[in-house]
Structure formats: C-alpha cells, structure tokens
C-alpha cells in the first residue's frame, strides 16, 4: 500500500534559519531519503519552493480564475512530500516519525486512494 507523507512547516521560520541549521536540516533529510531508499520504502518525493512562488487555479472553462499564492493564510505550509510503500498504516506512521519534518512541523500520513478502473 502506498502512503503520502505530507510535510508541513512554518516557511517563515525555515527562511530565517542560520546557514548552519539549514545545512543540518538538509543533511537530515538527505539521510532520511537514503534510509527510505535502502529499505525499499521510497517511491518518490520532493521538497517544494515557498508558497510565494505558488499559483492556484480555481474553476473550469472560461470561468477559471488564476490566483497568486495559496488559498488560505495558515501557520504551516506544505513544504514537501514523500510517497512511500508500506505494508500498513502503523509502518507508514513509523516512517513518518523518522521524518526530520516532525522536528518543527507536522507530517501528515495519507493513504493513496485507488483510482477506479
């Protein structure tokens, strides 16, 4: 079964990190990605740029609106994700617990839904 690990954090705080803290964070994420890969749990994943670079499209056809930024001002923003393979929810939670994103933010575990055939 596949699970998405959605990493939320305060991007303002992340932007004001000292270079040293930033380097440690990247090192921790690098090691975490390696551990996922070596254990065969890694499917894919990526860090995302800040929400200031984000564009949202709402509505379809000629009524579509294109908006700058995310919809709502929230304290924590989606900063990256992993897609992992895990036998069950408890195993996925175990991986989420190891994610460095839990140190200062939230990691949400969402099972991937099957597409109707």
């Amino acid at each position, binding site marked *: 079964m596949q699970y998405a690990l959605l990493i939320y954090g305060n991007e303002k705080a992340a932007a004001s990190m000292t270079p040293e803290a930033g380097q*440690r964070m990247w*090192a*921790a994420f*690098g*090691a*975490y*990605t*390696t*551990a*996922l890969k*070596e*254990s065969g749990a890694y499917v894919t994943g990526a860090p995302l740029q800040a929400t200031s670079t984000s564009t949202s499209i709402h509505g379809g056809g000629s009524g579509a609106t294109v908006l700058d930024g995310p919809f709502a001002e929230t304290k924590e923003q989606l900063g990256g994700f992993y897609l992992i393979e895990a036998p069950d*929810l*408890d195993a996925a*939670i*175990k991986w989420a*617990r*190891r994610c*460095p994103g*839990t*140190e200062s933010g939230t990691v949400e575990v969402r099972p991937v839904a099957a597409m109707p055939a």
Partner: protein
Amino acid sequence: MTQSDPDRRTGSPAWRAAECAARESYGKLLALLAVRTNDVAAAEDALADAFASALAHWPVAGVPNSPDAWLLTAARRRLVDDARHRQSADRVHDAVAAELGPAIVEGADVSDMPDHRLALMFACTHPAIDAESRAPLMLQAVLGFDARRIAAAFIQSPAAMAQRLVRAKRKIRDARISMEIPELSELPDRLDAVLDAIYVAYTDGWGNPQDATMERQGLTAEAIRLARLVADLAPREPEPLGLLALLLYVDARRTAHRPATGGYIPLTEQDPAAWDDSLIDEAERLLDRAALARTIGRFQLEAAIQSVHAARRRSGVTDWAALVMLYDALWRRTGSDVVATNRAVARAAVDGPATGLADLDAIRAAGRVESYQPFWAARAEMLARLGDRTAAAEAYQRAIGLAADPEVRRFLLDRSQMPRPS
C-alpha cells in the same frame, strides 16, 4: 445545583479528589467484575457509568468512606440491569446476578476482597491475544487508560488502536479466555507474556521524551507501577523482581541520559553523579532477592547487564568482559538481533572494533537489521574507530535517516562530522 457549582466543575479540588479516589480503585474493581463475567468490555462500561455518577455526586456530597464499595455497587447494579435489558428473561438476570454473586457483597470493602488484577493481566496477555494488543489491553484494563491515550503512547492511529482493543476484548469473552492464574507448569511462560507487555509499555514511554506529551511520560511511571504490582502479587517468582530491577536501573539514568537542558548522552558518556543512587540501590536489592530463587531468566539477565553498567558509579570503569558474557547468555535465550548488536558493541570494547565489526556483519547477513537505527550507529562508530571514513559516513547516514528522535538525530549528525584520529 447548577452547572456552575464550583465543586462540580471539572478540575476543581473536590472533583480531583473524587477522580483520584475513583482512579485508584479502577483496576481492582474491573478485575473483580470481569473475572466473574469474562466480559471485560461490559465491565468497563459498567465501571465507566459508576465513575460518571461518582464524579457527579462526590464533589458535592463528599467522597464516601469506602469509595470502592460505592463504585462496585453502582457498577454491579448496572451490569445486572444490562443483562435484564438485553434479554428480559429473568433466568439470565439471575445467572448474571449469581455470577457476580456472593463474592461481591453490596457495601463490602474491596480491600477485603481477593485481588484479581494478576488474573486479569494473564487474560490480557494470553497467547491467544495478538501480541501487539497485549500491552495496550493490559494498560486499559488494569489502569483504565482510554484508547486515545493508549494510541498516543504507542504512536498508532487512535481508530486502529480502538478497534484492536475491541477485538481483543471480544476474543476474551467469546473464546472464554481463562481469567485464572495459570497452573504452575504453565506459569513461567505465561508470566513472561505479562512481564513482556509491561516492558513494552515502559520502553515505549521512554523512547522519546522530546515529544513528551504527558501520555508518553506517564507511561513509564505506570509501567513501573504495574511491575511493582506483579512483583507484589507473585512474590515467589524471580522474573518479576528482575523486571522491576531492570526498569529502576534504567529509570535511574533518565536525567543523565536526557538532560532537562536538551541533548542526548549515551550511557558510556554519562556522568554517574547524575544517576539516581536510591533507585539503583533498590534495583540491586531486588536483583539480589531474585537470585535467591536460583532460576535465571531474561529479565534478571537484562537487569544484571544494567547492574554492571551501574557499578561504574563506584569503580569508575565498565567491566565489558562481564557484559559480553551476560549478552551471550541473553542471546542464547532470545536470539534477538537487538541483543546481538549490543553484544557486538561490548565485544568491540574488549577485543577492538574489527572484532565488533565482524560480529555486526554476521548479524546483518540475517537481514533483519536494515531499518534498526542502533545497528547502523554502532557500525558507524566502529568504522570510524578503524579509520574507514567513507564507510563510516555511509553508516552514519543510514543511522541518521532512521532516527525518530530529534535529539538522537542531532547527536548522530554531530558524531558524523567529528574529526577522528585514525
């Protein structure tokens, strides 16, 4: 009486006194009720009802002289009512009333009644109950934790945990899992399951004080409470004493291991002055008492390992050769990769990192340590001592990626960047 009555408000002193009195009796009352009916869930419901009405009455009327008897009477009435309600046949009602029977006399003092908590613990850890449900089920039945709190303590999803607990209780009732102390021939194995569940509860609570929700911190104290209870209820058995000693040794190092100021300090680098001497002394006495039975077991061995480490507070050195021997004995009993990893660390201290590394390679060949963080940390440390920087960096990388504890992650990150003499 209104809702705003200060005595009735949740958290008021009167309410807390009522809550405390009720909580103290929980396990004993549940055991009394469940042992008679074999139905843990129904006993819980009845007790929950009794508690709710106690929390409504006691803050105003005062805590009764015998809170236990009050609660028991209320719960018993509810159970009998339920039985009547479910199937109006008087026959059933009579049967339940008879089961709850003369052993539970209205108004009697629970302290005079037999303590069935150990029997309840045996039922919760019965081999027919799935292994992962045992510790949670025991915490719920004996200590009255709710499913949400247990899920938080074991870091599982609350819905899955609730379902797991319901399933286990249904099995106790439907399969009629025995609510008696097992016979002597079966006792050691069954006792192991009880002790194992307590051990799991303790280590789960200790793992990570960083995300120190009250739930997880409280779990270690509750596990020690349960260990004391089993040691009291089965005084002639050595292994409960061994387990209690083990937990006290480990607890004695809590602040030395994870100082309040933050950080993570591995055992070998801790200052023994920061250990809690009185806990260690108590653990030593318990281990001596256990030894009188002349039957060694897993928990006594684990406590003995802790005792060797604790001896550093007086001698200033660690007897690694003794540790290798103890880990050998423990490994023969358990065949556990965790034990084998620790043994390799002790061997590295006695015979050098190359020997320890060869041991680790042998463990890895079995293929069960790929996501076991301490294995990779041990391997990294040995490789670094051997001067193999590249391989050490790779092993540190794995260990860091597998660390669930931010302080351990930070510690390993620092270690991995530390320059080493080669």
